[in-house]
């Protein structure tokens, strides 16, 4: 039991060490450092040695002492294997080792005599590995997007792995891609269009959606049940089955190629989900409050504005943010309905850049950062509301 646990422990922890070091090496390689091998054997072996040493020394020596000694020894060996690397790379390796050995030192001999100790250790390290793996995999494309926008085409052709940003250059040449994207490619106009469409969609959707959701939640009328179920069904119909009829009809009516036409479509496609989300919330508001309002002689307008709205501000905020996100990110309709650059939204403009001949990739990525940053900023800032919007709106994507 004990031997098996110890062996599992050392193997798993060495895999963990290897993956940590590999991620760090990949990041270093992308700073233009020449690292030609991940050296699996070496790191795996040293991982096993470190874990054994840590287990058998843990009760004899001070914990801090072991952590520092083991890390330093490892980094020194690493230095002899990959010499002539910049100092920050070794500092990073050292910090990773500190973290790793610190995690190891939590396990002493006692841990290995429990039931299921191998499993517990496995799950512990799997969790750690998972957290690091997921963050890396998620963030890496975003990182790539950001750093590419600060490079130039020639530099990327010379060494496609060197994403280091030269901070010594002046600000104008550092942000050159962004300046060009906004001046030559007219992204200011597209940003304005995107904002108009998204904010307009939010406003109209709320103006139409709140009364309708109130009626569905509270009032009795013929067709109510039909309405509330059809909301969900309509919501599940994808844009791609609407696009051909809408394209033909909008062409004949001359509504294509206008921001206004897009606004109508976005409103119609987001209304069902807005109503669905809002009516669920309205139902949770106590009815007595409205009855008191009726006693005071309020009509439905008064009830909605004076009673329902103030009580459901958080729900309205999450619907608004969710609708904003859908409208801001929407692609298919903007592709089909916008032909002339003056009416482009950001998404459409970036696609146009990509299709258009040989746009340097740093401009493409600068454009992508421009369209991504606002929505990520909103997400981080209003996370609570947007997450609740994502969960109750749930099915769209």
């Amino acid at each position, binding site marked *: 039991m004990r031997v098996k646990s110890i062996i599992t422990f050392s193997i798993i922890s060495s895999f963990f060490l290897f993956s940590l070091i590999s991620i760090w090496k990949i990041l270093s390689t992308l700073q233009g450092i020449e690292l030609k091998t991940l050296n699996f054997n070496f790191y795996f072996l040293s991982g096993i040695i470190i874990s054994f040493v840590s287990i058998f020394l843990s009760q004899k020596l001070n914990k801090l002492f072991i952590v520092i000694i083991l890390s330093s020894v490892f980094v020194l060996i690493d230095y002899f294997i990959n010499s002539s690397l910049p100092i920050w790379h070794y500092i990073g390796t050292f910090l990773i080792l500190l973290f790793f050995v610190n995690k190891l030192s939590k396990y002493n001999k006692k841990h290995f005599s429990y039931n299921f100790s191998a*499993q517990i250790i496995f799950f512990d390290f799997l969790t750690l590995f998972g957290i690091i793996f997921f963050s890396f995999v998620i963030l890496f494309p975003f990182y790539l997007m950001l750093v590419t926008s600060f490079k130039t085409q020639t530099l990327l052709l010379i060494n496609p792995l060197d994403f280091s940003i030269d901070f010594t250059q002046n600000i104008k040449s550092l942000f050159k891609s962004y300046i060009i994207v906004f001046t030559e490619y007219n992204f200011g106009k597209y940003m304005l269009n995107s904002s108009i469409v998204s904010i307009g969609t939010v406003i109209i959707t709320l103006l139409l959606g709140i009364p309708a959701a109130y009626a569905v939640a509270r009032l009795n009328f013929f067709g109510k049940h039909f*309405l509330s179920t059809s909301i969900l069904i309509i919501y599940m119909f994808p844009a791609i089955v609407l696009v051909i009829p809408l394209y033909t009809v909008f062409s004949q009516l001359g509504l294509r190629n206008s921001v206004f036409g897009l606004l109508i479509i976005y409103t119609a496609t987001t209304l069902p989900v807005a109503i669905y989300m809002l009516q669920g919330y309205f139902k949770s508001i106590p009815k007595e409050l409205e009855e008191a309002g009726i006693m005071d002689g309020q009509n439905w307008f008064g009830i909605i504005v004076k009673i329902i709205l103030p009580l459901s501000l958080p729900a309205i905020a999450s619907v608004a943010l969710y609708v904003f996100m859908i409208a801001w990110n929407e692609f298919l309709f903007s592709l089909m309905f916008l032909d002339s650059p003056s009416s482009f939204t950001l998404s459409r403009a970036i696609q146009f850049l990509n299709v258009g001949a040989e746009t340097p990739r740093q401009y*493409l990525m600068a454009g992508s950062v421009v369209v991504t940053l606002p929505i990520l900023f909103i997400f981080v800032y209003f996370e609570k509301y947007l997450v609740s919007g994502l969960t109750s709106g749930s099915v769209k994507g």
Partner: protein
Amino acid sequence: MSNTLSKIEKRTAYALTLPAVLIVFAIVLFPIFSNVWISFKEVQLKDIRIPEPRAKKIVKSVKNEDSKIKIIYKLRNSSLIQDIRNIKFQDKFPNNVQPVNLDERCKFISNKVQCDFGDWSKKYREQFIIFFETKNGEKIDKKKFKLNKPNLKGKADNILLTSDFTLSNFKKVFTNYEFKDLLLTTFYYTFFGTVGAIVFGILSAQMVNQNFRGRSFIRSTLLFPYVAPVVALAFTWELLLDPNSGTLNNLLLNYNIIDKPINLLGQKYVSIFVFGFEFKLRLALTTVIIFEIWRYFPLAFLFILARLQAVPKELYEAADIDGAGPYTKFMNITLPQITAVISILFMIRFIWNFNKFEDIFLLTGGASGTRTLPINVYEQGFSIGDIGMGSAVSMVIVLLLLFFMLIYFKLIGKRANES
């Protein structure tokens, strides 16, 4: 009394819902029904413009005659395939001028020339000329003639509203040798995309459902791919995976893991040898599925995490007392608690992945074996320009979708009955 109250209530309800219902009806329901209509018609993209009579006005002075002017109208039928009936023409001219030898189809009444051109067949063209002279022989002012534009009106059939129907679109869809492949690709993409997203959702939720520093940071980070615009993400992935200058291939080459670059988005098959047997993996499709999983597992994560946080702690404590290990706890406590969420998630994600258009369109455009049904709608309708065919394919999508929804709502109903 109560009768009138309920009447008022009904009237209010209709007033409140009507605007929303109308706009949704016009933009969502109406297109779904007109899809049925269009799918039974032979319509090309170039036919959908309603034909209209057009006139280009050219004003020319006449040599040696100051008081005369020549006006040429280049008349034509804008459509190459349809006739226009009963065309009326009108143009306004300055005071003090009169036409010379006016065409017999036209009349000159109070400074206006009004003509009745009758019917124009398709591709019709005509050069129509009017001469004008001043009544008192003064010099004519050319600029004044250019002020007005001629006004033409005519009746034409809207090709969408004619009553000839055909089954040929559906015949073409179902007899196309690619149709089976198309369905297979769609289901492959949908199924593995959904399952992958849910598996990664479970894994990540299980991880975040533990106490560690930076937990809330990880939680918001994990949602980034779902929140960010698909255009930006797809192009970033294209750069990442590009065979020549892409970061991934260069990294793998740099570490000598591969010998030559792999075209992850442009290669249809890759051969894999397992125990001497050759397997053909659909490479581009797999890459697209991985992108799909990467982008949508956050949603599964969010749902499963919410459910996990609601699992009572006592269950795990009891399991500890019974001497259960982490694996047993996961299989016997965690999984049964989240099966309900997973089955609903599976249906929802299945339906949405089935409809997914943007992701594949932006990554591969449907090339190298990644053409799914929604991509086919776009290709038929707008790349090839056969609107009728595109509609027929989207009808196939609608029918399959209705079938999935039926299952979904049955499932939800069953869940509602159980709880």
